[in-house]
Each structure stands twice: as structure tokens, then as C-alpha cells.
């Protein structure tokens, strides 16, 4: 038993956990390669990335929300609503303006969420549950529960056709936004302050950071991203439907959590979310390839998600162990020096 405990306590194990996204991704790719070698072809990869792009956009929007310690369940509904707007107004305004309008709808929905959570101080779970119901119902009302078609199916192809044989426009947009978010989170003052807001809101306020403004902003961002996702999705299939995005919210949350962003706030990364999405993309592709039925895929996703949050809970109770690259390197160096202060493990 003690041996087991020591194993779990070892730096190796904790290092593995910290970099679990990478580990899982490598594992996933390896397993996939064994099971279905053809998926490592470029075209396959491009296709799986594309498939995940829509969920990915929602997931990217969710990442700052979770870092700020909040939840947003309405992404899927906003996606549907924006898509419907982008298609529905095509006749009136033309395709591009209608698409822009769709994005505006996303922004407005985000503002509604922000209002509920920040101004009315409603718990974000309940607030976005309510707004999800509302937006979804709105979508159904506007379309009379029937999908609507756009004017020109060829227009959307621009989005979903691989450009020059590489990646689709959709994929490129999604990767671009992730990279931008990553930069924002790691290199801008506002981005770093967001971690403070999510981790210890009281101390953030005490340091002069306006937590409420930040939280407001994250919901608007999340809504906007869901809006963009919805517009792109609808354009690519030239259809706006009130049932789009029904499972997107959960898949997006799964990707974000798999990618290492904590539900309690204060920790997360855009690249991590990308990693989580890649993991899910790989798994989905493999399962599709093997003709695994949809419900089994669901089971797999659910189990992985549970295992990961369990792992997170289990490991987060082990404070005082730094296993970042820099620290690991330094500890190797330090073994030759006497430490200034004995590093004590937190009780």
C-alpha cells in the first residue's frame, strides 16, 4: 500500500498528470495508429480537425469562462440561434451581412448571460441553463421547428473546402482564434488578471482588479464565439436549424476539461483546450472509422471526462509540488546545492 502511495506521490506521476493532455494525446494517436493506420494520413487529419472546428470554437469561448470560475451551458443554443439568423436574413440582406448579423446575435446572447450573472447575481449554472432554454425555444419559435435553407449552397463551400489541399477555412479560423486566446491569456495583463479573478476573487479585488467587469467580458466572449461557430456551421451546410448544437455544449466542456482547465477556476489554457479537442477528434475519428455507434462514442467521452475530473480532484490535494519543466530542470540542478529553506510539504 505504501509503495502504491509512493508511486502516486512521485514526481514522475505528478508530472504525467500535469502534462496529461500531451500524454493522452500521444496515447490517443498511438492507439489510433495501431487500430486504424490510415487516419494518420494528412487528409484524414484535416477532416477530423474540420469536424471538430465547430465544437472547438465553442470550446475556445468557454475556456476563459471556466478560468474565471463560471459555467456557460448555453453555447449550443446560441449556436443554433446565430446560424438561423445567418441563413434566415440572407434574402433580405445578402449573405455576408446576414452572417455578420448572426455573429451580432451571438454577442447579444452573451450580453444577456453576462447580465444575468453579473448584474442580477444569478449563479452561472442556473443562469445559463435558463438562457439556454430560452434561446433554444426562441430558435424553435422563429423557425417553427423546421430547418431553413439558404439561397446559395455553394457559398458555404468556401468555408468547408480545404484550401489548397491543406486545411479548411473553418479550421484555420478556429486555430487562429485559439492561438490568439493563448497569447492573450499568457502574455497580456488582462489575461493574467483573469486567472486572479477565477482563483481568488477577493484578493483580485483587493489588488484593484475589477472582477465583475472581467466576468462580464468572458460571457460576452463566449456568446460571440458560439455565434461565430453557429454562423460557420450553418453556412457550410447552407441550413439553419433549431436543433443544431444540441450536444455541443457538453462536448465543448469535455474538451476544455480534458485540456486541463479546472472547473473551479484559476487554471486553464487555450492550448490545453486545443489538446482536449484533438484528443476528442482523434477518438471520434477512430470510432467512426471502426463504425462504432454514436452511443458508444458518448460512453467513451463521458468516461474519459469523469476519469479526468477525478484525477484532477485527486491530484489537486497534493500541493507543494511543482512539476513544471523549469522546476524539474532546476531541481536537478539544485540537488548539488543546499537549499536556502527546507522545502516543506504542505500538511
Amino acid at each position, binding site marked *: 500500500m505504501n509503495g502504491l502511495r509512493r508511486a502516486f506521490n512521485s514526481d514522475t506521476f505528478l508530472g504525467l498528470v500535469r502534462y496529461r493532455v500531451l500524454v493522452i494525446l500521444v496515447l490517443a494517436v498511438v492507439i489510433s495508429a495501431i487500430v486504424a493506420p490510415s487516419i494518420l494520413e494528412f487528409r484524414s487529419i484535416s477532416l477530423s480537425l474540420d469536424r471538430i472546428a465547430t465544437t472547438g470554437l465553442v470550446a475556445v469561448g468557454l475556456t476563459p469562462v471556466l478560468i474565471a470560475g463560471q*459555467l456557460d451551458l448555453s453555447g449550443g443554443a446560441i449556436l443554433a440561434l446565430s446560424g438561423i439568423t445567418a441563413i434566415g436574413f440572407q434574402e433580405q440582406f445578402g449573405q455576408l451581412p446576414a452572417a455578420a448579423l448572426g455573429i451580432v446575435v451571438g454577442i447579444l446572447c452573451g450580453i444577456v448571460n453576462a447580465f*444575468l450573472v453579473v448584474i*442580477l*447575481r*444569478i*449563479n452561472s*449554472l*442556473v*443562469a445559463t*441553463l*435558463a*438562457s*439556454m*432554454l*430560452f*434561446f*433554444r*425555444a*426562441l*430558435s*424553435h*419559435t422563429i423557425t*417553427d*421547428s423546421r430547418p431553413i435553407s439558404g439561397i446559395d449552397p455553394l457559398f458555404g463551400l468556401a468555408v468547408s473546402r480545404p484550401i489548397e489541399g491543406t486545411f479548411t477555412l473553418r479550421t484555420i479560423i478556429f486555430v487562429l482564434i485559439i492561438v490568439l486566446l493563448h497569447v492573450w491569456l499568457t502574455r497580456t495583463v488582462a489575461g493574467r488578471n483573469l486567472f486572479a479573478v477565477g482563483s481568488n476573487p477577493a484578493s483580485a479585488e483587493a489588488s484593484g482588479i475589477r472582477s465583475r467587469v472581467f466576468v462580464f467580458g468572458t460571457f460576452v466572449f463566449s456568446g460571440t464565439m458560439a455565434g461565430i461557430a453557429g454562423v460557420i456551421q450553418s453556412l457550410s451546410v447552407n441550413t439553419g436549424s*433549431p436543433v443544431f448544437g444540441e450536444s455541443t455544449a*457538453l462536448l465543448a*466542456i*469535455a474538451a476544455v*476539461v480534458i485540456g486541463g482547465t479546472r*472547473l*473551479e477556476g484559476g487554471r486553464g489554457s487555450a492550448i490545453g483546450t486545443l489538446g482536449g479537442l484533438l484528443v476528442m477528434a482523434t477518438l471520434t475519428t477512430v470510432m467512426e472509422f471502426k463504425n462504432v*455507434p*454514436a*452511443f*458508444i*462514442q*458518448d*460512453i467513451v*467521452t*463521458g*468516461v474519459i*471526462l*469523469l476519469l479526468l*475530473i*477525478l484525477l484532477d*480532484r485527486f491530484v489537486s490535494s497534493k500541493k507543494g509540488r511543482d512539476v513544471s519543466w523549469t522546476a524539474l530542470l532546476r531541481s536537478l540542478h539544485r540537488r548539488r546545492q543546499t537549499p536556502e529553506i527546507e522545502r516543506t510539504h504542505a500538511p
Partner: protein
Amino acid sequence: MSDSSTKTHTVSVRLVKESPLKRYASAFAVPIGIVLLLIVGSILSDRFLTVGNLTNVIINMSIVGIIVVGMTFVFITRGMADLSVPATVAVGGILVLSLDQAIGTIPAAIVGVLVAGLAGVVNGLLIGYAKLNPVITTLATGIIVLGIAQAFVGGVIVYGDDTAAKEFINGRLFGVVPVIVLIFLVVVIAGHLVLSRTVYGRWTYAVGSNPDATEASAVPVRRVKAGAFVLTAALAGFSGVLLGISLQAARPAIGAGYEFDAITAVVVGGVSLLGGSGSIPRAIGGLLFVQLLTNIMVLQGVPSEPQGMVKGALIAGAIALDVWLRRKGGRE
């Protein structure tokens, strides 16, 4: 430490006086709302205030009502919400119909409830003992359980052919009281009695209100919290069983939306998300309110979609009101 020259200023700082406004608003809001709806409804449509129509309302709310009982426990114990309800409902419905030919309807029903309860045990362990976030956990277990249920039946619709059971469930006792309503009432009364008169019920309130003090009072906090989820899953499974029998058909999506309906009812009824307060009568009151509202809209010819919008707005409104009242009453 205090010397005899202590002067006391009369500043009420630590006493939390229950503001009468909050107390009355909170207790009477829903009944008044129901009365208002009854009045408005009867004005808008002559068909509203008929026995037939009102009976329909109650029949419609019976299935959700059973789930609401469980969800109330979850709320009061500060378990946030149980989003795995669609899955456990489906489990109940699917199992009762797939097994009824093999082992008979009633044993199949029991199996359905037990398996659903098992899902609840998993939830309970993860949330009560491992202390995971209830929202994500129940979402994830819901997906897993639903997937397993679908795998079990190969992803198709299950049909049953026990017409006797179907007629029974859909029929009326003594030609007057619908059986399903009776079952619903039994569950509600049982739930209310457990919550208000038993040790477990008292523990539920204590855990939701102050888990630390409750733990220090030698109460098994984790077991109580886990129990709420087991109960909800079992009740959801039971309502799925009833649904399945009454329709003699069960799709995996049979439970879709029930979790939101249950949460809406509980929230509108004034049961707080933060735990420690509320009751089953209140939750059922909230359910009645929502059902009456829906009924009025249906009678007015409002299509089902905008009804969803109203429901969403209702949840938001009810919670905002609760938050506001709490702040007025001096509690954060």
C-alpha cells in the same frame, strides 16, 4: 475582560432579523401566483376551468412531479442539480419494456428502477464522497448511462405489448381518479413525509444549510448528499417505467427535457439553489404554476416553442427574485 464601565451601543450587527417582507413573499408568492393564473386562465378561455381540463393538467404533471420530488432533495442538500435525469428516465422506460416479456411487467419495472438507482449510486459516490462538481458529473454520467441503455437495446425504439398494464396505468381508479395521478400523489406525500418527519430528511436540511456544523454534530454528511442523488435517479427511473408502460414504447430520448422541467418547477417553487430551505409542497406548487401557465398558453393556441422561452425566463426571474430577497433579508 469587560470592565464595569462598558457601554453598549445599540447597533444591530449580528442579529439576522427575518424581514417580514421576505417571509411572506416567500411563503405566499406561489399560491398567490397559482390563484392569479386560475383567474387569468378562466378569463382567457372557457375551457380552462373545467374538470376535464384541470384533470389533464394534473395528469401531465404527474410524471415530472415524481422527478421533482427527487430534485427537491438534491436542491435542499446543496447538490446543485441532477442533470442525469433524462438518462435515468430512459433506463426505466427501456428496461421495463425490454424485460416485461421475459420476467413480467412488475419485476421488469423493479429492475428498471434498481438499475436507474445504480446510476444514482455512481453519482452519489462521485459527488458526495469524491466531491466532484455535481453539474459536470451528472452530465457525464447521464451521457454514459444513456449510451449504455442504447447499447443495451441496439439503439432502436423498444416496444412493449402489455396492453393490460397500459390500460391500468392510463386508466382511472373507481372511474374517477387517474391511476397515474394517484401514484404521483403517493410519491409526493411519501417524499414530503420523509423530508419533514424523518431523520434523513432533517439531515438533508442540515447538510445543505451548514455542512461543517452538521459534520461536527456527528451526522454522516457524505452519505446524506449521496443519498439525494440515489433517490433522484431511482425516482426518475420509476417515472420512466410509468412512462414506458403508459406508452408501450420507449425511445432513448424519452426522458429529454425532464431535468429542465423539474429544475424549473423547483426553482419557481422557491427552493433555493444554495440549499437548506424549501419543501416538497413548495416544489409541487412551482410545478403546478408552470403547468397551469403552459396549459393557458396551449389553450390560447400558443405553439410549444415560445413556451420554452417563457420557461427559461421564469427560471431566471425566480432565481433573481430569490437572490434579491435574500439580500434584503440580510443573508448573502
